[in-house]
């Protein structure tokens, strides 16, 4: 069943299910409706996906695969290259760049990476809505939302962490950094995407203004992590103690 037509049908099932889960909630979306909206018969859905849960799992898995892949790309193209060529060194609490140009190149690259993630997430807003709604259902232990935590975890099970650590064994950060990343960086991005339309309506901003405002905010917030040719990896490291210069 790998001919173009069936691949197309499978894709249709996936995208229709994503839409319906997002609109009606996982419980509210019925297999009949998915079949009807995807213009396939129910048997074909069951051929690819034995249960409704398996459709959801598939959607969520491929979402996180994409996100992880984008992270791996950034590590490969920027972090590993800069470490291996001696332009960057990871210290326990900071990344140190050999020259200002190296730091600026990294800054530009990581900003580009954030924008790619954001663009991807904006495309996937139905997905994020499902993840958030599922996480809000009580008793749903360890829902997909917490997989964002897994992506920041300092464990060898996290491919992103493992990959950077292989390039520089000093790479590490505290549970508090992960906590902040989750609640003050990942969650704001998810909320920005999920509540985008509502905020737009309430504030009178248009799409471009919203996006510009978000990117500006990220830049302001990140500004404190830049310290000369260093980029800090601990909250408040550069600011709590009075600076010498």
């Amino acid at each position, binding site marked *: 069943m790998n001919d173009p037509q069936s691949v197309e049908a499978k894709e249709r099932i996936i995208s229709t299910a994503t839409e319906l889960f997002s609109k009606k909630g996982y419980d509210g979306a019925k297999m009949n409706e998915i079949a009807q909206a995807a213009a396939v018969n129910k048997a074909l859905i069951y051929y690819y996906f034995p249960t409704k849960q398996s459709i959801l799992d598939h959607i969520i898995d491929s979402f996180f695969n994409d996100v992880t892949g984008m992270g791996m790309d950034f590590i490969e193209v920027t972090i590993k290259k800069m470490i291996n060529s001696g332009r960057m060194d990871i210290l326990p609490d900071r990344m140190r760049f050999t020259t200002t140009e190296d730091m600026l190149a990294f800054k530009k690259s990581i900003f580009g990476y954030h924008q790619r993630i954001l663009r991807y997430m904006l495309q996937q807003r139905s997905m994020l809505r499902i993840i958030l709604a599922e996480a809000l259902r009580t008793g749903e232990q360890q829902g997909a939302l917490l997989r964002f935590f897994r992506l920041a975890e300092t464990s060898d099970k996290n491919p992103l962490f493992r990959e950077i650590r292989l390039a520089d064994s000093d790479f590490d950060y505290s549970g508090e950094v992960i906590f902040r990343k989750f609640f003050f960086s990942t969650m704001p991005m998810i909320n920005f995407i999920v509540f985008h339309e509502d905020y737009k309506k*309430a504030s009178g901003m248009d799409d471009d203004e919203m996006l510009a405002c978000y990117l500006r905010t990220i830049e302001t917030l990140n500004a404190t992590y830049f310290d000369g040719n260093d980029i800090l990896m601990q909250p408040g490291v550069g600011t709590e103690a009075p600076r010498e210069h």
Partner: protein
Amino acid sequence: MEKSDSDARERILCAAADLFAEKGYEGAKMNEIALSASVTKGLIYHYFEGKQAILDHLIRSFFDEVKIIGIRFIRERISQMIHEGTLDIQGNRPCFSSAEAEASYRREMHRYYVDLLDYLLYHKRMLRILLSEALRKGEQHDALLRFFLISEGGVKTPMHKELSDLDPDVYYTDDIVFLKFFFSLLPMLNYIVFEEDYRTVSGLSFKETRQMFVRALEEFYFGDLVGQGVWIL
């Protein structure tokens, strides 16, 4: 109203809040609410027009309480400092007459954040309902946004209004409103709602996550995180 009457009404609200949080607004049925509150469905309809009216009531009274906490803090603490001349607000930035004034402001803010956080943690069920409602597509239930958004057109949050009555220089730019909404308010709601889940995956204790949260919030509001001394009130 007889005591038993108000009891029954309270029981209905409480049962509804539990069921909305557990099953979502759509999933919770009037029959279940009646059963769980040990009242007849007729009595529910005596007090409330319908399920929507119960939800509206719950959300309204929750926001009223949050408003009271904020306004009380402003009246009791901020206003005193403004009147003494130890605090002056310019835009969204508090300016102090001395280092002691700043330290005492930080202490007051700390207590306020902790009190607010604890209040919200106690009412996490309500926040779960609010967030779920905000997620329901095409819903007119934008209570969350309406309550916290300040637009330049003059729609102000009650707290903002209270502040600008005290000091007309209080002014939030669109960027500050945006920053507050997405990078402080929603993280707070998310923390409260997902705190338990987060503990499960991270292995942290409640005390640790709460401390981390308050610390992050303080750095955010006291400018450390925002950098260049951008204070937000």
